[in-house]
């Protein structure tokens, strides 16, 4: 068979197309990058990342952040604040969303309708609006910082900051932390051992009780051995300054409550859809072997529903993490607002925005990775 001429040879065409595609993209990047560099130089801005060690000039509430600290430190504070939103929000929204999703399918007409109203209301409103509303109508209604309310003497509540009892660490707390981590490891090992035991002998594993017991025992022993380095600390109002205790800014709680409620409404729809997607035969089979309603949910329906629901729920977690950027509207100093303020202070925007995007990509990839591991373990064999 004669080979076709090279301009009709499919292998050549494919290679040529790819080279052209890559050349176009690379060329565009080089051209735009060159423009970027020239414009930055023309405006007297640095073209690399050296500005990160310059003083920030940004004030961050609720922390002893010195405006003279370098920019990279400010960015780290922002990442910490975003992380605090994400790590607290995700468990809450999962629980709330699951409860409402199950309530939507309740046989009690009132409960089902109430859940439906909740979902249909919150799902169709922009999250930014919910944040603004919660901030204005809830948080700002709390007493002003110079005259906060102090219920039970345990809490100090104002519209600036909400503080409650917390832990104060003294020397030896580091050792206690190390012991706690060791205790977690031991608990996991005990859990695996009990599972194996249950598999080989068929007895109940009671692995949750065993793991928890091991963890608590080791931590308690360690606590006393290191000389009780952790104690309860209550917020103490000293004029306008609050010392001790553990709390968060009013704006933090506004964003948290608003986004948890918003994302939970989406999760509720996902949970409802996934429970309804479990084939009806499963319910009938469970009834045929006389499982109670609760047993049916726990052993038959929910495990299968969970497998279906997990990928869309991952998406909602990612949306939650990305929506924390809306906190910029009420001045909560998470990473987006700090970037915004740094740009306002004259630092180069392209580099800062690149770093900002990188930070969110990191959050997204981490959440994605963690939940995908779970997803892979749940997947049906052969899928």
């Amino acid at each position, binding site marked *: 068979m004669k080979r076709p001429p090279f301009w009709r040879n499919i292998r050549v065409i494919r290679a040529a197309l790819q080279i052209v595609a890559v050349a176009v993209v690379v060329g565009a990047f080089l051209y735009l990058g060159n423009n970027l560099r020239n414009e*930055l130089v023309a405006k007297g801005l640095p073209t690399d990342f050296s500005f990160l060690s310059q003083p920030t000039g940004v004030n961050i509430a609720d922390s002893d952040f010195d405006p003279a600290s370098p920019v990279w430190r400010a960015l780290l504070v922002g990442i910490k604040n975003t992380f605090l939103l994400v790590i607290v929000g995700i468990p809450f929204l999962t629980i709330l969303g699951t409860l409402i999703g199950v309530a939507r399918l309740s046989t009690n*007409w009132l409960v089902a309708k109430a859940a439906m109203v909740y979902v249909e*209301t919150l799902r169709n*409103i922009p999250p930014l609006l919910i944040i603004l509303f919660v901030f204005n109508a809830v948080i700002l209604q709390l007493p002003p910082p110079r005259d906060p309310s102090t219920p039970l003497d345990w809490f100090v509540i104002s519209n600036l900051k909400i503080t409650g009892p917390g832990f104060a660490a003294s020397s030896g707390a580091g050792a206690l932390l190390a012991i706690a981590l060791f205790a977690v490891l031991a608990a996991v090992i005990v859990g695996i051992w009990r599972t194996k035991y249950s598999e080989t002998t068929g007895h109940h594993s009671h692995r949750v009780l065993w793991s928890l017991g091991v963890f608590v025992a080791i931590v308690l022993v360690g606590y006393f051995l290191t000389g009780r380095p952790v104690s309860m600390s209550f917020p103490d109002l000293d004029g306008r300054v609050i010392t001790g205790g553990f709390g968060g800014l009013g704006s933090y709680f506004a964003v948290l409550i608003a986004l948890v409620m918003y994302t939970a409404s989406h999760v509720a729809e996902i949970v409802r859809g996934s429970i309804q997607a479990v084939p009806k035969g499963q319910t009938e089979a469970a009834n045929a072997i006389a499982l109670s309603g609760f047993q049916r949910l726990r052993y038959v329906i929910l495990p299968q529903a969970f497998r279906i629901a997990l990928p869309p729920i991952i998406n909602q977690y990612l949306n939650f993490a990305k929506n924390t950027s809306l906190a910029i509207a009420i001045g909560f100093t998470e990473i987006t607002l700090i970037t915004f303020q740094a740009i306002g202070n004259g630092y180069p925007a392209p580099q800062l925005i690149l770093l900002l995007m990188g930070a969110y*990509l990191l959050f997204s990839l981490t959440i994605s990775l963690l939940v995908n591991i779970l997803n892979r373990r749940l997947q049906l064999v052969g899928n």
Partner: protein
Amino acid sequence: MKKNLFSNWYNSLLTVVFGAFILWVVYSLVKYLIGVDTEIIRVNLRLYMTGRFPSEQLARLWGAIYVATATVALFARATVRNAQMKATEAGLDFERSHWTDVVRRFWPIGALILFTLSFTQTITPTLLTLVAAAIGLAAYWLGGMMPKWLIHRSWIIVVAGLVGFYAVLVGFGGVGWDLWQGFFVNIVITVAGISLAFPLGLMLALGRRSTLPAVRVLSVTYIEFLRGVPMITLLLMGAFALGFLIPGDFQFSLFLRLLIAITLFQSAYIAEVVRGGLQSVPKGQIEAAQSVGLSPWKTMRLVVLPQALRNVIPAMVGQFISLFKDTTLVFIVGLLDLLRAVQISTAQPEFFAQGLEAVVLPFAALYFWVGSFVMSRESRRLEKKLGVGVR
């Protein structure tokens, strides 16, 4: 249904607790609504709807609304007639939907228009709205006389409508898009964003499925990068960093820069939606097309894409709704949309510090809620009609 309220003890407990809670909510709501002072809305309605659109040019805005209404009515009529012709050609029965069905589907929008008009201070907007309704009906009736070639190419109507809309607003010394503000800009950004992002997203989805590794890697990188960052970072990029990519002092308008950023962002999500659609077309279709001798491009255009796009209409509507809600973010970079308008209205000296956010924020929420609710109901109706996901 209602018999389950007290069927056993925990149902009764739930009913009592929830009932009390709901009664409390309704009571507070009614008390709030009776006492609410809507003066701020009455005074600022034009600010909310159109921002700082020059008032002497409002005739252009109404003209553009008339163009849009006529386009929608003509397009609807063309679609109906198209379906009718196809049905009679195939010898099938054609079921005409009654106008009461349309009312049932879209009554929230009608209610919202009436609600808005109730806050106007003169009779003029009401009259102008009636004119718009008349134009819509007239256009629908005129659509009955459209030639056949136009019905088969009904996209011409849409394109002509868009051009006309833009021309009426901007042409001959009109109002440039920097002054398109208020709820108007929310709607414009949504429609423009999705329309511009759609071709780009389609190309990316095809690129992601390409057999050329370089093209696939580039597409995947683009899609995953843009889906991993929040939209606000792209808006910040549009507002602050895009200017650095253009040599010299030439500065795009803010509206255009934000539109570019939103288009890029939405194209990644639309690419994923279209990818789902492409995956839903059975492989046998492609094999059948190949056996008839269609080239890859013709296969895509005549066999795969029509089926794929029809399958993902519900997901596309979902993306549309999502963009509609996300247009509120533009206020952070300085574009005056509905949310920003209601916020600055509470900062005006005569309305300052009266806690009126609790009045205007739900007002703004209503607009987004009605739009999203109607669209999601339409999407569910389409899902049922197309039989998506039914086993």
